[in-house]
């Protein structure tokens, strides 16, 4: 860094010789402008979309089987179909609240190619009959706000948004909305609460998912920024061109961020489903290995909430089901890499602290349990823990996630994998996420915790002295 602060420069992205679906304009310095967008096929997808019927466009997205990129990986075309018939109005809420630890892609997409996202929103609104779109952008992203505000102003001027888009009878508004700092607001029902001007606490679901009862009690589609950014390509090139990339269960490409102890941390658009973690961490076109050529110790495969993987799992491809049966998940596409020098309990502490801090307080196991886990772990890392504390972690964990927790297999420990997912006693995933990384760390590296704790007082002799 130099102090000549380069606000217009959003670093971290590396191109490669791979198919590009959402990053095709990133090579241009002016990729965020309407001029560049027009010069690179911009809003052509919208024109093709408007030449189809809404149902045809929806079918095209369904056929592309594009999966949601916000974390759950649910097919967008299927979710769109859950809106109840004959209930109007319907809304689109764009989830630009990116704040899962390790995740850095939506911000890039908003800062570097805002028109692509806007075009994606317009396509979704046309196909599903959504008459008003709200772009909810995390508050701590002023550059993304400015880029999107400029792009929206330009797109309104050019007739892409507003009444009678491009002279058709499709009319829609897109409203840029500001967040104000709360991780849990990324959860779709909390996002809706927040957009209604409330405290951002998740709603209980089932029975009512946002597609049926969402914003203002009306059918609402919530989609992630990257999910929507895929739509211009699908409208332009067709679903077959999309499914030709990637695998059958994970079509297209995917944006992933790899951070931590690698030589070239960065954001990459990878071919979905077939690229392995070994490719990503060691491949020349990706991260080029571990810093200082150290040994790999462990890695988080899918954002801070995900159970950890070991070098044993390097050959697993970046594919949802495979990661699930190996004991974790791909979440928001964030890989965090730890080398042999890493203090494992301390690394887990930074995540457990995060989720404890971000609890909205609505359910007891998360509000109290997360904080307990954080306090206990902090005590252990400060050198004041006992063996009792290790048992206590598992006990508190059980109250958040009863039953078996997913974890990876380890040859070293003779452990077999327990597949994802877990059971939970909380409304949303913040509670379990405080426990999952800690559970992984404790299960896969028990010796590092044992080395930090003293024997429990119950198991040691404490002699009576004159002073006591």
């Amino acid at each position, binding site marked *: 860094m130099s102090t000549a*602060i380069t606000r217009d420069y959003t670093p*971290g992205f590396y191109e490669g010789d791979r198919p590009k679906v959402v990053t095709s304009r990133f090579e241009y310095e002016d990729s965020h402008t309407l001029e560049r967008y027009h010069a690179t096929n911009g809003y052509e997808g919208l024109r093709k979309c408007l030449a189809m019927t809404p149902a045809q466009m929806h079918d095209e997205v369904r056929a592309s089987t594009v999966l949601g990129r916000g974390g759950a990986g649910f097919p967008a075309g299927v979710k769109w179909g859950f809106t109840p018939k004959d209930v*109007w109005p319907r809304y689109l809420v764009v989830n630009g609240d990116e*704040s899962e630890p390790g995740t*850095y892609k939506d911000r890039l997409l908003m800062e570097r190619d805002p028109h692509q996202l806007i075009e994606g929103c317009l396509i979704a609104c046309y196909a599903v009959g959504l008459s008003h779109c709200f772009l909810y952008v995390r508050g*701590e992203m002023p550059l993304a706000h400015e880029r999107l505000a400029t792009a929206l102003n330009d797109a309104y001027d050019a007739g892409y948004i507003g009444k009678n888009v491009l002279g058709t009878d*499709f009319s829609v508004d897109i409203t840029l909305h500001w967040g104000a700092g709360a991780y849990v607001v990324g959860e779709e029902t909390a996002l809706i609460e927040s957009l209604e001007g409330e405290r951002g606490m998740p709603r209980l679901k089932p029975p009512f998912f946002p597609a049926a009862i969402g914003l203002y009690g009306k059918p609402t589609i919530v989609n992630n920024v990257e999910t929507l950014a895929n739509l211009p390509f699908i409208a332009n090139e067709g679903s077959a061109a999309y499914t030709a990339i990637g695998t059958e269960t994970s079509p297209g490409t995917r944006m992933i961020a790899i951070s931590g102890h690698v030589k070239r941390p960065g954001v990459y658009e990878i071919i979905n489903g077939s690229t392995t973690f070994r490719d990503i961490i060691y491949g020349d076109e990706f991260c080029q290995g571990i810093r200082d050529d150290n040994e790999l110790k462990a890695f988080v495969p899918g954002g801070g909430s995900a159970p950890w993987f070991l070098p044993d799992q390097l050959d697993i491809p970046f594919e949802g089901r495979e990661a699930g049966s190996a004991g974790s998940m791909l979440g928001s596409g964030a890989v965090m890499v730890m080398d042999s020098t*890493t203090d494992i309990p301390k690394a887990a502490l930074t995540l457990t602290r995060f989720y404890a801090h971000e609890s909205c307080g609505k359910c007891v196991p998360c509000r109290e349990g997360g904080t307990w886990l954080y306090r206990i772990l902090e005590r252990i890392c400060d050198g004041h823990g006992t063996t009792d504390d290790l048992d206590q972690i598992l006990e508190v964990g059980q109250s958040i996630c009863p039953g078996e927790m997913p974890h990876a297999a380890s040859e070293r420990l003779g452990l077999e994998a327990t597949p994802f997912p877990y059971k939970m006693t909380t409304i949303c995933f913040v509670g379990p996420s405080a426990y999952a990384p800690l559970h992984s760390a404790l299960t896969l590296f028990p010796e590092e915790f044992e080395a930090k704790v003293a024997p429990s007082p119950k198991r040691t002799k404490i002699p009576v002295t004159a002073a006591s």
Partner: protein
Amino acid sequence: MSRLSDSNVQLAHEIIARYPKPKSALIPLLHLSQEQNGYVTQDAMRHIAELVGVTPAEVIGTATFYEMFKFEPVGTYLINICGTMSCALLGAEELMHHAEQKLGIRAGSTTDDGMFTLEHAECQAACTEAPCLQVNYRHQYRVSTQDLDAMIDDLRSGALRDEIPAHGTLTRIRQRTHPNEVGAVPVDEVTEAPVWISKHEATEAPA
């Protein structure tokens, strides 16, 4: 007096008009008041309650949920150092320690001259560029302790005044109200499918 200024009231009305229900404008209006005063004042919250048509208690209820809203004055520059995993793996703790030494204050507090407030922060969606921090939410990437020293000196001397506005100003470009806007429609006033949907419904089986 820290109610919203006349020009901000006008802006507030524009923002409120974009939503089918006025209460949705609460967070944007709280940002507006923070931009005006550097923090959110009690008077401003009362004024926002009037503008939106809710009680002041409802405004406080919402405002206090969100970390970006400050209810007492903070430094002109709010420095947030990320301490979540990716940054922690690459030296966030040393960076924070160094910042505390350099500024002579503990995280969570403000320098006597009102220039700087230092805070622990969580993941800033820049994890590949660790360790990172934000000054009034403007990102700084791969920050070394020397970078931090230079940055604080530059902030003090005013060399970065144009790049980083005082705390409260989030964005300097706003979405404009456009003459061709459809305009937000109260929720209850829409009962039928939009025309681009309904005109096909007669000819097409629903998907």
